C-alpha cells in the first residue's frame, strides 16, 4: 500500500471518528440551536470524508454526492431548521429530563454492538473506507437512541436526519455510494420530509401551544 492511499485512509478514518464524536455530542446536547449546529457540522464532515474517498478512488459520481451533502445537509437543512426555530420561537427550549451519563453509557454499548455487527461485512468489502462501516452503523444507532429519549419535536427530527447521515456514511463506506439517481431521490425525500414536518410543527403548536411531544401520547390501547 503506498503512502498516498494510507494517508487518505487515515483521513477517512479521522473524519468518520469525528462524525461519531459529533453523534455523541448531539446525544448530550440539551439546547436546540447548538444541536442544529452540531448537525450541520456532521453534514460538513460527511461531505469532507466523501470528498477524500472521491479524490482517492477517482469515482466521479462521489463528487456529486459530496456536493449534494454539502448543499443539503450542511446548508439547506440546518437553515430550514434555524428558520423553524425562529418562527416557532422555541429558541430557549431545553430538554430537562434526560440523564446524560446514562445515555452516554447506553450509547457506548450501542457502538460496541454496531462494531460487532459490521465486522463480518466490512471484512468482505474491498473499499478503502470499509473500516468506517461500523462507525456508520453506530451513528445510525446513536441517532435512533436520540430519537427515543428526546421529548421535543425538533430534536427528534434532528435525530431522524442524523440517522440519514449515518446511512449515507454506510453507503459510501461499503460501496462508494449508491447510484446517483437513487441518491438524488433520497435527498429529495429528506428535503420534502423536513418541509412537511415544518408545516406539521405549526399544526402541533397551534393545537397544543408547545412542541413537547409528550402531548402526543393520548392514543393508546386501553
Amino acid at each position: 500500500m503506498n503512502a498516498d492511499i494510507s494517508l487518505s485512509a487515515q483521513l477517512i478514518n479521522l473524519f468518520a471518528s469525528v462524525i461519531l464524536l459529533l453523534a455523541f455530542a448531539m446525544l448530550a446536547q440539551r439546547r436546540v440551536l447548538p444541536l442544529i449546529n452540531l448537525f450541520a457540522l456532521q453534514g460538513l464532515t460527511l461531505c469532507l470524508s466523501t470528498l477524500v474517498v472521491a479524490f482517492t478512488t477517482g469515482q466521479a459520481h462521489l463528487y456529486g454526492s459530496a456536493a449534494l451533502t454539502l448543499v443539503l445537509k450542511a446548508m439547506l437543512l440546518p437553515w430550514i431548521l434555524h428558520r423553524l426555530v425562529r418562527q416557532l420561537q422555541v429558541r430557549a427550549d431545553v430538554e430537562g429530563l434526560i440523564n446524560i451519563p446514562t445515555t452516554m453509557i447506553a450509547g457506548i454499548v450501542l457502538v460496541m454492538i454496531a462494531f460487532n455487527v459490521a465486522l463480518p461485512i466490512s471484512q468482505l468489502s474491498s473499499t478503502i473506507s470499509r473500516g468506517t462501516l461500523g462507525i456508520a452503523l453506530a451513528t445510525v444507532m446513536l441517532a435512533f437512541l436520540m430519537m427515543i429519549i428526546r421529548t421535543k419535536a425538533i430534536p427528534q427530527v434532528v435525530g431522524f436526519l442524523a440517522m440519514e447521515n449515518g446511512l449515507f456514511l454506510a453507503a459510501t463506506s461499503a460501496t462508494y455510494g449508491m447510484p446517483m439517481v437513487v441518491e438524488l431521490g433520497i435527498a429529495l425525500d429528506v428535503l420534502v420530509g423536513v418541509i412537511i414536518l415544518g408545516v406539521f410543527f405549526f399544526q402541533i403548536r397551534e393545537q397544543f401551544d408547545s412542541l413537547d411531544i409528550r402531548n402526543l401520547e393520548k392514543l393508546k390501547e386501553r
Partner: protein
Amino acid sequence: MDLFMLMLAIPLVSGALLTVVGERAWAPNLNIIASLGTFLASALLTAEIVAAGPRFAFGELFFIDSLNVFFVALTAFVGLTTSIFSGPYMRNEQEHGKLTAPRLRLYKSMFQLFMFTMLAALTTNNLGILWVAMEAATLTTVLLVSLYRTPASLEAAWKYFILCGVGIAQALFGTILLYFAAERVLGETGNALLWTHLVGVKGQLEPTIMALSFIFLLVGYGTKVGLAPLHNWLPDAHAEGPTPVSAVLSGLLLNVALYAILRCKVLADGAIPGGFAGNLMMGFGLLTLVVAAFFLSRQKDIKRMFAYSSIEHMGLITFAFGMGGAVANFAGLLHMTMHSLTKSAIFFTVGHASQKCGTQLMEDIRGLIKINPVIGWGLMLGTLAILGMPPFGVFASEFMILTHAMKHHPWATPVLLLALGVAFASIFGKVQPMVFGETHARPLPHAPAITPVFVHLAIVLMIGLWIPPYLTRWFHEAARMLG
C-alpha cells in the same frame, strides 16, 4: 403516447392541476376523471403485458411483469372507487364543519400524488427508487392523516411519520447492504440495484450479507405493512385520518409495502439456502396475526377495529408468502386482492355509518339497517366477507392458506385457527348490533356514493364462486415468479 407513461403521468399532472385550480364545485369530478384515466391506462397496460409479456420502460428504470402489473391494476381500481366514494363523503365532512376548502384541495392533490408514488413504487426496477417511492408515499399521506387537525389526528400523523420514517431507514440500510452484496457480483456498472439484473445472479450473492440485508428490509418495509411489533402507527393513522385515506392506506399502501418485501424475498431465497427468508416471514406473520386478533376484541372505535383487522390479514398474508411454493403464493396473492377490495369497501360503509351517527364509537352506532338499509347491508356483507365466510373470495384464499399450512407446517395450524376464531368472534359480535338494533341518526346533506361498496363486494363474491381463467393464469404466473 405510451400506456405506461400515461399511467404515471395522469396522477402526477392531475395532482399538480388540483393544487392549482383549488377547491371548485367540479374538483371532485376532476379527481374521479383522473383516477378513471389512470385505471383505464393500467387496465390496457395489463392487457398488453398479459398478451405480450414483461417489458421495460425508460431504459431499464421501470419494469412491468405479471407480478407487479397485477398490483398496478388493483391499485388503480381501488384508487378509482375511492375517488368516487370520497366526492360526497368529503362534501358531507365540509357541511359538518370538520373540513375547510383549502384542506379539501390538499386532500385531492395529495391523493393523486399518493397514487403516483404507489404506482412508481410498484413498477420501478431499481430497488433504490423503490425505497424512494415508498418514503414519498409516507410523505404524501402524513398531512392527509392530520387533515382534521384535531389533537388525536396530529398525534396519529406524528407517530405515522416517525415510526414509518425509522422503519424505512432500516429498509434503506438493508438496501445499501443488498447493493453491497450485488456490487461484488455485478461490478460498479450502476446495474447493481436493478431487480432484473439481480434476479439473474441471485445465487451468487453473499449469503451472510443477504441474510442481514433481508432482516433489515423485512423489519423496515414490514413497519409499513403493519407487522408486529412495529404496527402501532397503523390503527391510529387509520382511525384519525379521513375515511378515504383509511381505505387507501389499508387497501393499497400495505400491499405495496408487502410487494417490496416480496421482491426482496425472491433475491434472499436465491442467495440463502435453507428457507431463511421464508421462516422469518412466517414467524413475523404469525406473531402479527395473533397480536392483532387479541387487540381486536378490545376496540371501541369502529375504524380502529377494522385497522387491526387489516394488521391481522397482513400477518396472514405474510405467513402465506413465508410458506412459499406455488399454492401458498397463489393463496397469498389472492388474499391480498380480496383483502384490498373487501377492506376498502368496509371503510366506505364505515365512513358513511359514522358520518350518519356523528361518531366512530361503536356503542353509539346502532340500527344502520333502519337508517339506510344499503349501508347496513353493505357493512354486514363486507364484514362477513372479511371474516372469511363462504361464498366470498376471502374464504377461498384463507382455506387455501389453512390447508397448505396443515399439510406442510402443522404446528402453525392451531395458532392460525385460534387467531382467526378470536378475530371472528370480536368483529362479528361488534358489527351485529351496529347493523341491527335501535337508532337515532340524522340524514346526510349529500347522498352517499355507495356503488363502489357493492362493486367491490360483487367482485369478491364472484371470485369466491368462480375465478375467471385469465385471472387464474395471471395469479399462477405471478406465484411462479415468487418461487
